[in-house]
């Protein structure tokens, strides 16, 4: 109980300190200051690139009819330490500090950094302390020194990115590693309950390793100039097509080889290891759905890939019977349209189709139908179902897992947790689908609320982080955030009976190796910045250049 209290205190302090620093950073001007006759100062939130054109989706909007819908894009190149202007009419890029657009003179100047805080390292210290205490507690519980290994990986990961990041503020990295401490616990859970502990320990090492590896890999990948043209297409265009091809291959293999588990054909066993191919499909679809910056949404080739692959993925999710996957893909699809498409009609059609899909889903999938029926119960009001009435009514059938989860999380766990009595001991998927209930049981409902609060912090941190990203990466970040958030809502909501159970796992918390690839990549995307520490060393020199421009 004392350990749980310590962890609660550390996490509260971490959230408060990080939230305060993010609040302080909100006025941090990182980006272009654009002058256009009268001073128009961008708040820097548009990131490392600023788009100009007649379309209202551009960062700087022009009304003059002679200006193209997408006239151009001004980009910081941190590696080259230059400002580049890409003229989208003729596709040429040049280093410049100004352009005449629509008869107006537009000048580009350098970012300023007026952010100073002595608290910069506080989130790191608190986050590392949390990980260290968690590791020590696990060592005390198991008596095995080897359990400290995964925790050590997390500590090193945070330290490394503190040094690498220009702002020394690895908030998203810290959030991911804090969640991964619970991932380690969830993975070791069967071993703690009398199962094969060594096997669980190996899984913990592999899982944490994969999460960290793929998050780093994602960042390395995004460090490339993905908007560089190779012939008529950008590098990103090629990656989109590759992702689409991989989706086709993976889905066919899944359908051909999968074993049926709980009504879904979602698992493949290869060399004795079970994994879910659909987790890979999520991240690949994300790649397909992000249109390169300079492309117009609606161009034939981009649209075919966008809508065609999306429809194929929905069909794939239906065939394998994974309603949770279908919902996640649907959310990513709708948000991809809403963020990138300037056509209101198309956006409304996308939303409408999604609503229709949700309504007809029960008739297409018997598993989904029975789950929705179980969740609804015989209640006349949806409010009662939203607060778990259906699960309690159907305790012996649909509600069996959820009721156990609720009792474990609140009645057994109390405020500070209970590791002496395990209500979830013989409950299926206790450390994956119901992992939040397991955490609340072992650490208390205070920790549960704090973890959910941590996710709110993640949202705010991602919004701050996009300032240090290119447009394409911003969209990737937003969609990754949406995918992660959707998974969390489906997982937590299903566990605690707010929504029907979907069997979706919790990113970076639920045990399992398959999800580590996709969610590790997504966290890496969200945490990536295109600005390195080296950039800031020259900021003073650039400010001098900026003064010359003005």
């Amino acid at each position, binding site marked *: *109980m004392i350990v749980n209290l310590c962890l609660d205190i550390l996490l509260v302090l971490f959230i408060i300190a990080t939230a305060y620093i993010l609040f302080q950073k909100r006025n941090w001007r990182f980006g272009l200051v654009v002058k256009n006759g009268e001073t128009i100062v961008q708040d820097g*939130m*548009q*990131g490392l690139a600023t*788009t100009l054109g007649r379309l*209202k*989706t*551009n*960062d700087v*909007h022009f009304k003059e009819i002679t200006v193209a819908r997408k006239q151009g894009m001004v980009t910081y190149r941190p590696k080259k330490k230059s400002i580049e202007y890409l003229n989208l009419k003729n596709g040429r890029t040049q280093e410049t500090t100004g352009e005449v657009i629509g008869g107006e003179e537009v000048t580009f100047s350098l970012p300023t950094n007026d952010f100073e805080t002595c608290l910069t390292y506080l989130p790191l210290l608190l986050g590392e302390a949390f990980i260290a205490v968690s590791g020590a507690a696990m060592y005390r519980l198991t008596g095995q020194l080897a359990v400290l290994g995964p925790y050590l990986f997390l500590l090193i990961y945070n330290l490394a990115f503190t040094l690498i990041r220009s702002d020394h503020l690895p908030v998203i990295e810290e959030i991911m590693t804090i969640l991964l401490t619970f991932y380690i616990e969830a993975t070791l859970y069967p071993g703690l309950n009398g199962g094969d502990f060594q096997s669980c320990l190996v899984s913990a090492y592999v899982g944490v390793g994969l999460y960290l590896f793929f998050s780093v890999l994602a960042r390395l990948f995004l460090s490339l100039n993905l908007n560089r043209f190779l012939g008529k297409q950008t590098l990103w265009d090629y990656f989109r097509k590759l992702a689409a091809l991989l989706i086709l291959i993976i889905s066919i293999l899944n359908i051909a080889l999968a074993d049926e588990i709980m009504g879904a054909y979602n698992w493949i066993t290869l060399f004795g290891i079970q994994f879910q191919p659909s987790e890979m499909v999520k991240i690949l679809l994300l790649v397909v759905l992000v249109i390169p910056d300079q492309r117009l949404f609606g161009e034939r080739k981009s649209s075919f890939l966008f809508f065609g692959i999306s429809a194929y993925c929905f069909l794939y999710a239906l065939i394998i019977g994974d309603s949770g996957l279908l919902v996640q893909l649907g959310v990513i699809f709708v*948000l991809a349209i*809403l*963020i*990138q498409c300037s056509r209101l009609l198309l956006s409304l059609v996308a939303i409408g189709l999604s609503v229709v899909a949700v309504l007809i889903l029960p008739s297409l999938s018997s598993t989904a139908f029975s789950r929705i029926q179980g969740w609804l119960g015989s209640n006349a009001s949806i409010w009662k179902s*939203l*607060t*778990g*009435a259906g699960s*309690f009514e159907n305790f012996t059938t649909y509600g069996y897992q959820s*009721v156990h989860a*609720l*009792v474990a*999380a*609140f*009645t*057994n*766990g*109390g*405020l*500070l*947790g*209970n590791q*002496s*009595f*395990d*209500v979830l001991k013989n409950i299926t998927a206790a450390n994956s689908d119901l992992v939040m209930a397991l955490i609340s049981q072992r650490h*208390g409902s205070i920790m*549960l*609320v704090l973890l*959910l609060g941590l*996710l*709110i912090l993640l*949202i*705010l941190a*991602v*919004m701050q982080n*996009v300032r240090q990203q290119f*447009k394409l990466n*911003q*969209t990737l970040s*937003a969609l990754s*955030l*949406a995918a992660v*958030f959707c998974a969390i*809502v489906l997982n*937590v*909501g299903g566990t*605690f*009976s*707010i929504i029907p159970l979907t069997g979706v796992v919790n990113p970076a918390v639920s045990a399992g190796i398959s999800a580590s690839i996709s969610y590790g990549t997504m966290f890496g995307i969200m945490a990536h910045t295109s600005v390195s520490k080296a950039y800031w060393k020259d900021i003073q020199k650039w400010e001098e250049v900026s003064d010359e421009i003005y």
Partner: protein
Amino acid sequence: MPKINRMKILCGLLVLIMCAGIILVLLVPVFHADEMKSYYQDFIHHDILNTAHIVDRNGQDIYNGDYAESKLTRLATFHLIGDDYDSIPTSVLAELYANTSEGNLFQGYQSQSEEIRLTIDLDLQEAAYEALVDGGYAGTVFVADYQTGEILCMVSTPSVDVKETSENIQEGAYLNKALQTYAPGSTFKAISVACLLEKGIDPDDLGSYYCDGKDGHISCTQRHGRVNLKQALYKSCNCAISYYVEKYLTADDLDQFVRSLGILDADLIAGTTINEGTIDSSDDLAWTADGQSKTLMSPVGLASFYAALANDGVYQQFSLIQGQQTTADALISQSTVDYLKEALTTGMRVWYRSPIDCRSFGKTGTAELDSGKSHAWFACCLDDEEAPSYVIVTMLEKAGSSSKAMNLAADLINDHILTKEASS
């Protein structure tokens, strides 16, 4: 709208959804608190059943996460251990559950898998059960150490095999007869005599009484002739005992004395609540003195009095679990103890012709029922240096003659208790 503004709106929506979700998650336990508590109690109950480890005084498993493999053990210990449905409220499992804390706001129930070592001797328990079943009796055998209070045997028939749910359950199977109350019959006479003596009556001053088999509405099974108080006791002369009691005591005297002994109380076994006995001599003091009328007493209650007799007047509270805290109460004076022990020891030798192969004292009793049948009682204490310090009470429902209860107890003592003592 610029892309970045759309992202800001998206993030704002996500934050709102998250906040709403947190509120809903916290509302669910508020709306379903009672149901969750009820399910939690069930889960705790199952955990106790799965983790309880109960052994006898010698470490033999009686229950270890599941009932014993041996049917005899299950039957013999059913009323001690209980079942999954708390059919026996006084059983060890039921008491374990009743004494378990569900935890508090900060932390829930703390599961423990400690070994519970009973004071019971499983071999003796099974032998007593077999003796009851072989005789076709519905009744109870209660054996305890009167110096330490440890219960060595508490068996009741008919019993239930918890693993054979298809078998027919006999009437009364769910009752632990050792804890139920019955008219004590002539075994109560020792208590009536104790009351006389504790009141300050000198037995030498009482003289003798001539029993011709009937005195008013009181009758004896035979004519006992001239008897003194001691003889009246061990010969079980209803007329003499009731005569003396009516002459020297009032109804209140007897009632208050019996209640003051505490042998009708519900806490005779530490940590367990048994049925309370009753006494009301106001209607018929005479028959009450002889252990009939409205007097109801449990075999455990009767054993507590006889145990006190053997233990120099001090009743050491009975206990079922080793290490339990118990109390000791002085019930009667040494002079009363000496008188009663001498009377009952003489009775064992002279009247019952020494059915037990060691020095002992005891009393039979036949409690007549309105139906014409009788409960057979026998209460005795082993009072020999070569024998363990045990009090034994047997009660056979509607068995008729008290000699059946005495013979059953004697066989058990001679064949099991004394044999085991000799071999050790």
